[in-house]
């Protein structure tokens, strides 16, 4: 989901920028020291895939639209920090060059999708991959969509409570949690199904073409 400018109060996006900036620096240092250098071309390819998937909009019944993200693939292959940094870069390019999503909402999208989505995907995969690899990948893909949707629905739904006029009229996004939670989360529980299938397919394709990694272990940044 790409939240436009003017939807989020500074009371939320300024602290979000502070948190995200700290995590961008920490994540970049961690990735720089621990990422296998030979994995960088593959990180570039998967990040480009994430960008393309986010640009392809699929119409949904009810007049709305959705897109896949590929965040589960990023997180399972390379870890949470690569996921967070790559998704942040994708969101920045989309906001600055194409006006898709706002610059003010960028840290919220990056934290929700890149960090929470990536962590949820990796946790889901790590918990289940010994039992069944495909089920673990599907769960990773599904969680990478469902949990960020919950976070973004909460971020949007809190706007009327955080910023409003004296008469109670919202200054930013006007719908409260009672509307945003079902409106955002429920469709994403369904969108998570094709996302899960995509994660199974693309991860399988990459590992078949390249092996698990260049040195036989994992590309993931601990």
């Amino acid at each position, binding site marked *: 989901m790409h939240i436009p400018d003017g939807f989020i109060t500074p009371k939320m996006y300024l602290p979000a920028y502070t948190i995200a900036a700290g995590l961008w620096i920490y994540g970049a240092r961690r990735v720089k020291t621990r990422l296998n250098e030979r994995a960088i071309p593959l990180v570039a390819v998967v990040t480009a895939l994430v*960008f393309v998937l986010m640009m392809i909009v699929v119409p949904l019944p009810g007049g709305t639209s959705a897109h896949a993200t590929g965040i589960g693939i990023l997180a399972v292959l390379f870890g949470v920090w690569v996921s967070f940094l790559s998704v942040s870069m994708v969101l920045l*390019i989309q906001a600055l060059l194409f006006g898709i999503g706002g610059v003010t909402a960028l840290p919220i999208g990056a934290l929700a999708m890149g960090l929470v989505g990536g962590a949820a995907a990796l946790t889901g995969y790590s918990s289940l991959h010994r039992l069944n690899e495909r089920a673990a990948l599907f769960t990773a893909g599904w969680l990478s969509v469902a949990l960020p949707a919950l976070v973004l629905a909460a971020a949007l739904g809190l706007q009327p409570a955080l910023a409003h006029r004296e008469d109670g009229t919202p200054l930013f996004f006007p719908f409260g949690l009672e509307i945003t939670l079902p409106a955002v989360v429920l469709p994403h529980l369904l969108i998570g199904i094709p996302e899960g299938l995509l994660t199974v397919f693309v991860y399988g394709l990459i590992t078949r073409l390249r092996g698990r990694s260049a040195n036989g272990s994992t590309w993931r940044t601990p």
Partner: protein
Amino acid sequence: MRYAICLLALCFATLAVAHELVHTISQDDSVVITLAYPDHGAFSYETYEIFGPDDASPRLTGRTDAYGRVKFLPDRAGRWRIRVFSEDGHGADVTVEIDRKLRPKSTVTAPGGRIGRIAIGVAIIFCVFGAVSFFLRSRTK
């Protein structure tokens, strides 16, 4: 007595006029903003708010029509702001510059060439990772 009844009737007739709502029908040039998803699906029946220049609260609220359109008649020059929301977090915050003739200073068409834009984005991503790879290799040498 007759005069009193006539006077009373006249008073009631005046009150009836006070409650009447007159209307006119005319054709004006309104500013039209059309909102659509990238797949060209209309952003229909969604909530909008229109703020005139320096307005603190919305001058007009409503819902987009079946074709995803917001229409309004500006009554003064300046920057008009149109905010459109759907319950699932989609929307836009559009600014329209209105000139002294109460017309938009410029019209905007929806950006096309989505495949071209995707290609540019992918190229930028590869450039960034190429630079990262170059930087890391130069440090390790």
